[in-house]
C-alpha cells in the first residue's frame, strides 16, 4: 500500500494519464494527439517513480519523450494533409472497436479484482518496498541473468535501425 500522500499523487497522475490518453486517441489534430501522447508518457514516468523505478522513469522520458514521440512528430510533419479537419479521422468500425475495447476493459478489471482481492490468490509481498539502488540492481540483472535477451534486443535495435533506413530511403533513380 502506498502512503496517504503518495495515493493522492497517484490519483492525480492517473487522472492525467487517462485524460491525456483519451485525448490522444480522440483528437482530430494528429499533432495535438502527439503532444498529448507525450503528456501521457510523461505521467506514466510519474507512475514509475511511484513504483520506485526511478531509472525506468528516466529511461521512459528519455526514450519515449525524447525519441519515440519525437519521431512521431517528425512523421506528422513529414506527412502532410493530416491536420485538415474535414477528413474523417476515425474509420467505420468505431462502434465495434469501442465495444471490443470496453469488453476487454471489463474482463481485465474483473480478472484483476478476482485474482488480487482473494486472499492467497496472489502472493503479495509483505513489504512492498524496493530496497537498494534500482539502477545497480537493474544493471546487475541485465548483465547476468538477462544478458542473452539484452544482447538480442541490441541486435533487434540494429536490425530495426537498418530496416528503417532501408525502408524510408528514397529509391535512387
Amino acid at each position, binding site marked *: *500500500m*502506498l502512503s*496517504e500522500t*503518495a*495515493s493522492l499523487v*497517484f490519483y492525480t497522475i492517473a487522472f492525467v*494519464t*487517462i485524460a491525456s490518453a483519451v485525448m*490522444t*486517441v480522440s483528437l482530430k489534430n*494528429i499533432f495535438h494527439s502527439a503532444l498529448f*501522447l507525450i503528456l*501521457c508518457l510523461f505521467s*506514466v514516468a510519474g*507512475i*514509475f517513480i511511484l*513504483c*520506485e*523505478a526511478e531509472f*525506468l522513469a528516466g*529511461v*521512459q522520458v528519455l526514450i*519515449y519523450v525524447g*525519441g519515440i514521440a519525437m*519521431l*512521431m512528430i517528425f*512523421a*506528422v510533419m513529414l*506527412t502532410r494533409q*493530416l491536420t485538415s479537419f474535414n477528413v*474523417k479521422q*476515425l*474509420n467505420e*468500425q468505431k462502434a*465495434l*472497436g*469501442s465495444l*471490443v*475495447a*470496453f469488453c*476487454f*476493459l471489463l474482463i*481485465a*478489471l474483473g480478472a484483476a*479484482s478476482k485474482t488480487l482481492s482473494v486472499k492467497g490468490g*496472489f502472493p*503479495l*509481498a509483505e513489504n512492498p*518496498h524496493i530496497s537498494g539502488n534500482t539502477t545497480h540492481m*537493474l544493471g546487475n*540483472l*541485465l548483465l547476468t541473468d538477462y544478458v542473452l535477451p*539484452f544482447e538480442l*534486443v541490441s541486435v533487434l*535495435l540494429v*536490425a530495426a535501425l537498418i*530496416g*528503417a533506413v532501408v*525502408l*524510408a530511403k528514397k529509391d535512387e533513380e
Partner: protein
Amino acid sequence: MQVGLIHFVALAAILFSIGMYGALTRRNAIGILMSIELMFNAVNINFVAFAKFISPVEITGQVFVVFVIAIAAAETTVGLAIVLLIYRNFKGVFVDRVNLMKW
C-alpha cells in the same frame, strides 16, 4: 482510499483499452502507432507495479520494462518508416486506403 496493486492494474487496464480503441478506430497510421505506444505503456505499468508489490527484492519486472521500451523503440522506428513509405506510395497515411491485399 490507499492505493494498492489493484489500482495500478486498473490504471493499466484502462490505458490498454484506450490504446486498443485507438488502434482499432483511428484511420491515421501514425495515430495507430501512438495507440500502440499507449498499450505498451499499460503493459509497462503492470510490470513495474508487479515488480514493486510482488517481488521487491528481485526487480525482474523492471528488467522486462527495459526490454519493452527497447522493442517499442524498434517498433516505432520501423513503423514510422513504413508510414513514410505508405505516404509516399498512397499519397496519404490513412490505413483504410491501403487495401491492396484484398481479393
